[in-house]
C-alpha cells in the first residue's frame, strides 16, 4: 500500500509515472490518493485501485490495469494458461473407469484402432 504525495506528482512503483484521472472529480480539493498495487509477477500485470475521497464525502474507484507486456503477449499468455488449465481440469475430472481413447498425438491417430488382439477376434470382425 502506497500513499500518493499529492496532485501531479510522480508516484513510485513499477508502473512509473501516475496518470492523472480525467473528469469532474479532478477539481475536488483536499483529496488524497491511496494506491494499492497488486503485482502479479507471473502475468506481469499491475492492478492499481485508486480511491479518491472528496469534500462532498463522495468517492469513486477507478481501476486501471497497467500492463508491462504488450497486449499481444499478454493475450498469448492468457490463452496458453487457459489451455493448460482446461487440459489439467479435463484430465483431473476424467473417471478412471472411462474407456481410453487413442490420442491425436499418435502417428496412428487417423487410422481406426484395432478393437481386439490378433487371433482373439471373431473371424468376421477381423
Amino acid at each position, binding site marked *: 500500500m502506497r500513499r500518493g504525495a499529492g496532485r501531479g506528482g510522480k508516484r513510485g512503483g513499477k508502473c512509473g509515472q501516475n496518470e492523472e484521472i480525467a473528469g469532474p472529480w479532478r477539481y475536488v480539493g483536499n483529496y488524497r490518493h491511496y494506491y494499492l498495487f497488486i503485482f502479479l509477477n*507471473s502475468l506481469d500485470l499491475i492492478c492499481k485501485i485508486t480511491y479518491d475521497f472528496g469534500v462532498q464525502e463522495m468517492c469513486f474507484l477507478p481501476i486501471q490495469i497497467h500492463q508491462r507486456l504488450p497486449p499481444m503477449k499478454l493475450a498469448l499468455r492468457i490463452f496458453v494458461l487457459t489451455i493448460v488449465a482446461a487440459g489439467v481440469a479435463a484430465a483431473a475430472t476424467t473417471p478412471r473407469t472411462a474407456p481410453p*481413447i487413442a490420442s491425436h498425438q499418435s*502417428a496412428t491417430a487417423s487410422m481406426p484402432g484395432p478393437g481386439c*488382439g490378433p487371433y482373439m477376434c471373431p473371424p468376421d470382425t477381423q
Partner: protein
Amino acid sequence: MPSQTAMFLMSVAEFALWAVLGFLFWKKKFHLQFPAMGYYLAIRIASMPLLVFFFYGQSRHWFHNLCFPIYFFIYWTVYIASAVLLYFVCIEVFRSALSAFPGLMKLGLVIFSWAVLASVIVSFSTITFSHKGFMLIPDIAFRLMRSVSILELCLLGFLCLSMNALRLSARDMAFGISLGFGIMSSSDFILASLWSPKTSLTDPVQFVCESMILVALGMWVAYCALPEPARQPLMVPANSLIFRWNEIATALGHTGTQVAVQPAGGFRLTEAENAVEESLTQDLKSRASAT
C-alpha cells in the same frame, strides 16, 4: 454439408497439413535443432500409407489373413514409438528454451530427466492389467501417452510463466512446438472427459477437438513458414536472479580439480600439524637453552 462429409474433409485437411509441416520442417532444417521432432514427423507421415495398405488388406483377406495381426502390431508399435519420441521432443524443447543459460540447462536437464523417469514409472505402476495377452499392449500405450501429455502441459505452463525470465520469444520454435502439443494434449483430455459410448464420430465434441488439432497444425505451419527471429545476445543485469542461479548451476556442474579422499587409516592433516608443532616446540626449547 453433412456432418460425415465435413469430418472427412477435416481429416483430409489434417493429413495435408501434416505433410506440409513435414516438408517445411525439413526444408528449413529444423530437424537439426529438433531431431526427435523430425523423427516424429517422419514416422507420422511414413506410417500412414503402410497402415492404410494393411487396413485395406484385412478386408480383402490378403496374405492369408495375416493383414490384421500385422496391422495390429504396426499400429501399436507406432503408437508407443510416438509416445517415446514425444518424451524426447519435450527434452529438446526444454533444452532449447534454456540454451541461453548453460548452467541452468545442465541442472534443469538432470531434474527434467528424473521427472520423466518418475512419470514413466508412475504410468507403468498404474496399469490395471485387466486385459491379458496382446491386449496389454494398448493399455501400456495409452498410459504412456497420457503421461507424456501431462508432461507437455507442464512444460507449456513452465515456458509460459518463465518466458520473461528466459528471454524467450513467443515466435521461438521451441515455444511453438510446446504450444502445439499443449493444445493437442488439452484436446485429448477434453475429449476423453466428455467421451461416452454413445459418442459418434460426428459428435460436436469431435468437431471441436478436430478443429483444435487443425489450429495447432496451422500454427506449426506458420511457425515453420515465417522466418524465426534471430536470437539476440542475452543482456541481463549483473545482479539478476536468474544470472546468479545460472552461475551457481555452472559452478555445481563444473568438473575441475579433483580432490583425493584419503582413507581412514591414511595420512591425516592433524598428524602433519602435530609434527610441525613438535618441531617448533623443540626449536624454541633449543633456543632457550642456548641463551
